[in-house]
C-alpha cells in the first residue's frame, strides 16, 4: 500500500523534473522545481525521515526557490532550450 | 555531441541500476546498514545524551564533526557569495567603506565617483 504511494510520488517527481528542465520560461521552471522539492519533502516524510523532510521543505523548496527567483530578477527569464 | 552525452548518461544510469542488484532488499531489517552502527545509535542515544530524537543526537554529538564541517560549509558559501558579488569601496580619504558600500553607491546614482560622499551608508 505504502509502496504504491511512493511509486506514484516518484513517477510524479520524474515528470516534474522533466518539466522543470524543459519549460522555456525560467520563472515557470523555478516554480516547477519548487513543487518538485515539496513533493520530495513529502516523499521523505513518507519514508520515515521527518527531519530530512523538514529540511528539504525549508531549504530545498523554500530558500533555493527564493534564491533562484531573486537571481531571475537580474537575468533574462527566457531560455533557448 | 548532445547525443553522445545522452548515450553516456544512459549507460551511467543503467550501470547505477545494475549496481543495486546486490543491495539488500528494500526495508530488510537484516541489511548491513540496519545491523551495523545504527543499532548503537538507536539503543544508546537516549542513554548517552538524554535526547529522544536520534537524528539530533547523531547529528550534534556522535557525528558532531560532520555537523561542524557542514556549518563551515554554510559560512563558506556566505563568504563566497559576498566575495564574488561585493567589493569594498575606497573612499577618497583613503578609508574603506562597509561591505555593501559599493552596492549602496551604485544604487544611489549612476556615477558614484563624482559624488563626494562616496558610498557612505
Amino acid at each position, binding site marked *: 500500500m505504502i509502496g504504491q504511494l511512493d511509486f506514484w510520488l516518484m513517477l510524479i517527481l520524474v515528470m516534474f523534473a522533466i518539466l522543470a528542465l524543459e519549460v522555456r520560461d525560467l520563472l515557470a521552471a523555478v516554480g516547477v522545481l519548487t513543487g518538485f522539492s515539496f513533493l520530495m519533502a513529502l516523499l521523505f516524510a513518507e519514508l520515515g525521515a521527518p527531519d530530512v523532510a523538514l529540511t528539504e521543505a525549508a531549504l530545498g523548496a523554500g530558500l533555493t526557490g527564493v534564491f533562484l527567483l531573486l537571481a531571475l530578477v537580474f537575468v533574462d527569464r527566457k531560455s533557448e532550450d | 555531441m548532445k547525443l553522445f552525452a545522452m548515450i553516456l548518461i544512459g549507460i551511467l544510469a543503467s550501470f547505477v541500476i545494475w549496481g543495486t542488484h546486490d543491495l539488500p532488499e528494500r526495508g530488510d531489517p537484516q541489511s548491513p546498514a540496519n545491523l551495523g552502527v545504527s543499532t548503537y545509535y538507536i539503543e544508546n542515544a537516549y542513554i548517552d545524551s538524554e535526547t529522544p530524537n536520534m537524528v539530533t543526537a547523531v547529528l*550534534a554529538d556522535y557525528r558532531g564533526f560532520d555537523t561542524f564541517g557542514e556549518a563551515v560549509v554554510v559560512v563558506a558559501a556566505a563568504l563566497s557569495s559576498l566575495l*564574488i558579488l561585493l567589493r569594498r569601496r575606497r573612499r577618497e580619504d583613503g578609508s574603506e567603506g562597509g561591505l555593501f558600500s*559599493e*552596492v549602496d553607491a551604485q544604487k544611489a546614482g549612476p556615477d558614484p565617483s563624482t559624488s563626494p560622499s562616496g558610498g557612505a551608508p
Partner: protein
Amino acid sequence: MTSRFESIFLFVVARAMVPLIQVFAFYVITHGHYSPGGGFQGGVMLAASIILLRISLGEESYDRFPREAGIVIGGFGALAFALLGFASMAFGGNFLEYALAVPGMGAEELRYWGIFFAEVFIGFLVWGALVAIYDALESGGVE
C-alpha cells in the same frame, strides 16, 4: 529604494508573520531534542523571516537588520561552535567531547546541553549565513 516585490497585502501579512515565524523558529531550534527539527531547520526559518522582512519593508528593513549583520551573526555562530569544540579540548578531552566540556557535571547532562548549544549555534549561523547570501544576491553584484 522601495522593495522589488512591493504590495500592500504582502506588507501587512509579512509584518504580522515575521514575529510568529521567529518564535516558531526558536521553538524548532530548541526543541530539536524531542521532535524533528533543530538548528538547521530553525535557522532557515529565521532567515526566511528576515527575507520576508526584506521583501515587505524594502529599505526600512536594513535599519532593523543591517546587511553586514548577516555575515557577522553567521561568523560568530560558527566561531561559537568551534569554541564549543575547543572547550572540551581545554579539559583534556577530544574535540567536541561535550562530556568533558565542564568539569563536575554528569556526562549525559553535559551531552544534552552540548547538543542544545550546538543546535543553537547552528541555528544562528545558518540564519546569518543565509541572510548574507540573500543580501549578496539581492545586491545583484557590483562591477
